[in-house]
């Protein structure tokens, strides 16, 4: 039962991951299902950078751990 619940939770996490990428990137939800794990990580990283740039935040203005 514990295993079933964990499988269900992992399934939901993947769907949420794909739905988030589709919504924020404007890419087709169906097409994103053909992405590999690594492609999704890269896509997500690039998307985050794009969102920051769109908001006017330059990488040099980001508050990082080293600055605290």
């Amino acid at each position, binding site marked *: 039962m514990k295993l079933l619940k964990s499988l269900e939770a992992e*399934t939901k996490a*993947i769907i949420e991951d794909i739905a988030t990428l589709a919504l924020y990137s404007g890419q087709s939800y169906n097409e994103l*299902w053909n992405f590999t794990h690594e492609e999704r990580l890269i896509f997500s990283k690039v998307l985050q950078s794009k969102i920051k740039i769109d908001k006017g935040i330059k990488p040099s203005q980001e508050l990082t751990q080293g600055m605290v």
Partner: protein
Amino acid sequence: MSENQNNPLKAFFRKPGIWIKLPSQGKFYHTPLAELNAQGEIPVFPMTAKDEILLKNADALLNGSAIRHLIESCVPCIKDIDGIPAIDLDAILVAIRRATYGEKFEMSTECACDTKTTTEFVVNLDAIISSIKVVDEIKPIVMDDGIKVYVHPVNIKSLLNLNWIQFEQMRNLQLADQKGMSEDEQLKLVNASYDILLNTSIQSVADCIDEVLMPDLTVVTHKEHIREWATQLARPEFKKLEENLLSLSDLGINKKINVQCANCDKQYEATIDLNPTTFFG
């Protein structure tokens, strides 16, 4: 999600993650492997999100369709999935995991010492893949009465079928217990389940026997005669055959890892569990 199934460009969607040497080198397959390169390697692709989600479906995992789909998607050069010998299956699963999530695989084991300390460590899948051994020949199994049994490795179809039947019988017994059946009825059900499991097991073993060489050098290749002989074998003899066949799957890949207990410092051997439910989790 299945609109791409008939797309002739499907094979070009992803780039191969890695190339691996199959322990069988394409032997024991009914359909020859496509794309085997000069070094005897095949391409393995990373999983897509679609593949990953199928591995989270308990029913698909139990009835074997998740594994079939996974290999069809990630190792497209193997056309005869049911015919994949078990000696190749472990190498394929390790390669798919490596191509998808990278070379590090975190696992934990429990030491047999009093404190049962759990040790967590990282396995380098690249090291395992580079140590894949090619199985050139399979030695015959010599029985106590001098009979030599020439075998080939069990295939995925038999393995998945056996797993499914085991699960089905276990579920029937649990249901019988829940329904409050009488002891007599439960006993009948246990016996029937045992018979089904035994027959399936005998059939799987018999299917792997190519020929039997008798001490007087007579060769028996007739499938039905071999099956009948396997049915009549004494329990220890049958177990010897069964265990030898199952151990063939360990020939290609080394799944043993030396671990040092964090508590008692004792070294012990742990085995990498390639069960898809946990291995791809």
